[in-house]
């Protein structure tokens, strides 16, 4: 810190070179100083999703732990404005009081990381842009951000968006910041769209081992007007005692009748609309011919929480892949994965979570090639201790990399923020 900065502010810095700014202007001061000195820094919240992405080598850290708290919550305007490091738990608690929620169903990454709940901060969710099971129906985190304030890599305080949903004033930087893993802007304040919570939830479980049928059902569900808000397939295979045990622990529901593979779909709304939707789905999907279990409200809510929070891969020590494909390619991918890998399918056939044993690094490449052929994309969400990094965590083609480099440069010309977190050179 320069003498002037020391004189003008009391920004606490601990022995590990971590700064603890108390407000936006202090963040700006620190970044300006680092910019001047050409010194990169890691941006940290509560670290719950820090394991995602490449490891960062930087001399400094900026902790946002003091930038926390709700700035403004107007339930009737359907938005909440928070300081960046506000915990998701606090936001959910506040929204709950008004029967509202973040419709994109934030994933609790604590379970795969450490085996227990640890939700992290709003800025963390925006930085990763990973939405839960309701994504195919309501959009991702990026679709629920109305605006933000933050500091760019030069130390300038910038803002974009606002608090209203209809806004096309200037470039939509909120979208760009979503999923940028803290490489563009040090976020200080975020405004999120909130929505009324659905009153009730019911889950229909279809027990089947026929994967062609599963993909056929996914297609029908996504083309249904019954507003299904969750559709997930849990395959029985492969045989693995510890995985089977995990499954048994996760899916311990009284009304889940039989073992084996199953497709679960969620219907939300009030009692009458759930009844109506169930009736039309029964016709559309010919449910009467299938082996079904029904989970009522008290089982349906925890069921989707467990799905959303990746509890099937609780505290995994293996590599965990997140794969998104066009749903029509499901049969091909399932055939490939069949009996070889532990996986499950979310987002009505679009999203695959696949676990690769720690010693099978080469398999990551094989799957990556297949996903490319299927016109999807793959991210290595969690790496095992033995992972060799032969395959990069994120994948990008050369044209997009070039454009991404230019965009990075426009926000953070000296690569101060989280260098290398996503791609080499960014």
């Amino acid at each position, binding site marked *: 810190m320069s003498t002037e900065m020391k004189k003008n502010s009391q920004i606490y810095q601990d022995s590990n070179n971590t700064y603890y700014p108390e407000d936006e202007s202090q963040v700006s001061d620190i970044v300006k100083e680092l910019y001047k000195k050409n010194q990169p820094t890691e941006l940290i919240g509560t670290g719950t999703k820090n394991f995602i992405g490449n490891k960062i080598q930087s001399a400094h850290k900026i902790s946002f732990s003091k930038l926390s708290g709700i700035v403004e919550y*107007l339930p*009737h*305007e359907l938005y909440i404005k928070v300081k960046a490091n506000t915990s998701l738990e606090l936001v959910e608690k506040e929204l709950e009081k008004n029967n*509202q929620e973040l419709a994109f169903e934030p994933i609790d990454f604590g379970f795969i990381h450490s085996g227990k709940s640890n939700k992290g901060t709003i800025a963390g969710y925006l930085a990763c*842009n990973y939405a839960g099971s309701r*994504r195919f129906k309501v959009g991702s985190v*990026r*679709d629920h951000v109305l605006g933000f304030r933050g500091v760019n890599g030069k130390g*300038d305080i*910038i803002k*974009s968006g*606002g608090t*209203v*949903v*209809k*806004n*096309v*004033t*200037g*470039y*939509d*930087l*909120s*979208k*760009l910041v*979503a*999923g*940028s893993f803290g490489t563009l802007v040090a976020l200080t304040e975020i405004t999120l769209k909130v929505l*009324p*919570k659905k009153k009730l939830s019911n889950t229909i479980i279809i027990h089947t081992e026929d994967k062609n049928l599963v993909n056929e059902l996914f297609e029908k569900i*996504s*083309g*249904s*007007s019954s*507003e299904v808000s969750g559709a997930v397939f849990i395959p029985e295979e492969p045989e693995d005692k510890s995985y089977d045990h995990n499954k048994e622990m996760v899916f311990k529901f009284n009304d889940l009748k039989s073992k084996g593979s199953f497709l679960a779909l969620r219907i939300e*709304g*009030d009692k009458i*609309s759930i009844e*109506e939707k169930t009736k*039309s789905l029964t016709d559309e999907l010919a449910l009467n011919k299938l082996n079904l279990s029904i989970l009522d409200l008290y089982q349906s809510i925890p069921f989707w929480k467990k799905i959303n929070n990746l509890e099937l891969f609780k505290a995994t020590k293996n590599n965990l892949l997140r794969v*998104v*494909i*066009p749903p*029509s390619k499901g049969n091909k991918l399932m055939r490939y994965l069949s009996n070889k890998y532990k996986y499950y399918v979310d987002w009505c056939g*679009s999203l695959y979570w696949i676990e690769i044993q720690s010693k099978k690094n080469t398999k990551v490449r094989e799957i990556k090639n297949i996903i490319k052929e299927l*016109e*999807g*994309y793959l991210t290595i969400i969690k790496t095992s201790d033995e992972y060799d990094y032969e395959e990069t965590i*994120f*994948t*990008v083609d050369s*044209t*997009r990399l070039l*454009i*991404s480099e230019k*965009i990075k*440069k*426009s*926000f953070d010309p000296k690569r101060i923020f989280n260098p290398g977190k996503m*791609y080499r050179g960014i």
Partner: protein
Amino acid sequence: MSELVLPKINKETISKKEYIFKNLAKIINPENVLSHADEIKPYETDALAAYTQTPLAVVMPENTKEVSNILKFCHAEDIKVVPRGAGTGLSGGALPLNDAILLSLGKFNKIIEIDFENKCVVTQPGVTNLGITHAVQHKNFYYAPDPSSQLACSIGGNVAENSGGVHSLKYGTTTNNILGVEIVMMDGTICRIGGKTLDQEGYDLMGLICGSEGLLGVITEVTVKILKNPQVVKAALIGFPTIEEGGNAATEIISSGIVPAGMEIMDKALIEATDNFSKAGYPRDAELLLIVELDGTESEVDELLKQVRDICEKNNCSSLKLSKNEKERLSFWAGRKAAFPACGALAPDYYCMDGSIPRGKLAEALLIIKKLSEKYKLPVANCFHAGDGNLHPLIMFDGSDKEELRKTEEFGAEILKACVRLGGVITGEHGVGVEKRELMCEMFNDNDIQQQLDIKKSLDEKNLLNPGKVYPILRKCAEEGRVHVHRNEEKFPDLPRF
């Protein structure tokens, strides 16, 4: 309207225009290069018809490769390019420049693939918004965003402007309804972003392009999501004796947890104008009319309509009519959809504004507009997308009277400034274009605008793609890279700057 400041003309470009025409005719079919005054006349303006400019030439490429080659050539020769879809934009985003090539995407008018399996349509950008719905409606699917110009506006233009519409409250705007785009950068680089998958890894370039008003790249292909038609759609037509009561009812509907598919407000001036025009059967005694549309399952919709009725009755509505059938529902909308032409019949010209405000400030905004209308002695009619706080005041004036023109612009600017004061923004869905660029400083300070200019500069370092739009005309902006408003040429000199 009043004199518009445009980027400095590059005299060199003008002087070598024959050379430019000759080269363009080598890149694409010579028939698709229009340079004769008669041929380019129709392209002099978009739907902000008060501004006209003659382009250097109009080029109509037929495929992405041609777009890329045209841009490569223009990039190498320092020639400005203005992209244009259907030319239905209301903010002058496709206004030509004397020293620029107007790049029309009119020949990109084919749907490439209808993929019901993945619930998407891959299309060229010149296909109309409604054209997509027409292509999939036989299987009861539709494309959700529905700007009022959907019959004519192109999907590429929708992406460039991030268009919304009546149903964006429940179904989102363009940015929430597209899966992929192909764009050509100013240097000719072709980039495919997204595809048929949800979301994408890395920087959300699609999110950046969407709503960038043709400043960052030329859109040559779009993949949109399609949705199944809802089971039941019903609407309510509700009249209120005062603006406050109607505004409060609209706010209360949203805060009660109901998410209508659409919710529109019209004021007395517009109720009369549209009813005269389309014989929609609106309650003429009402000061404010609310149209609420709900969709879902039969009993869900009925239950929600009951709740809407309760809220409206609590707020002293003077009339309430529920649609009994599809024909009646469409008749409720007929008047609303005729709002603009109806105003066209009332005055020689009308000026359509497009601010957004927090929903709870609807009544307040209407009262401010009423007072401003008295101040400027210009009649105004109001229609709002009430569900998402998007206002469309229509100022009626006589364009042949220069003083009235000036007053109209001032009036419009005051409305938008009021929107910002109320916590809103200067454009909800029409875009900034040339129309509102000087008002950007109402919302953004130098740092905010500088960041946006830096992005522009990083992707179009010579500032050749659609220059002079969105951002205030800056002194040597491209060279110096700093925001500096040219004081002598300010369009709204009374605006406070910060």
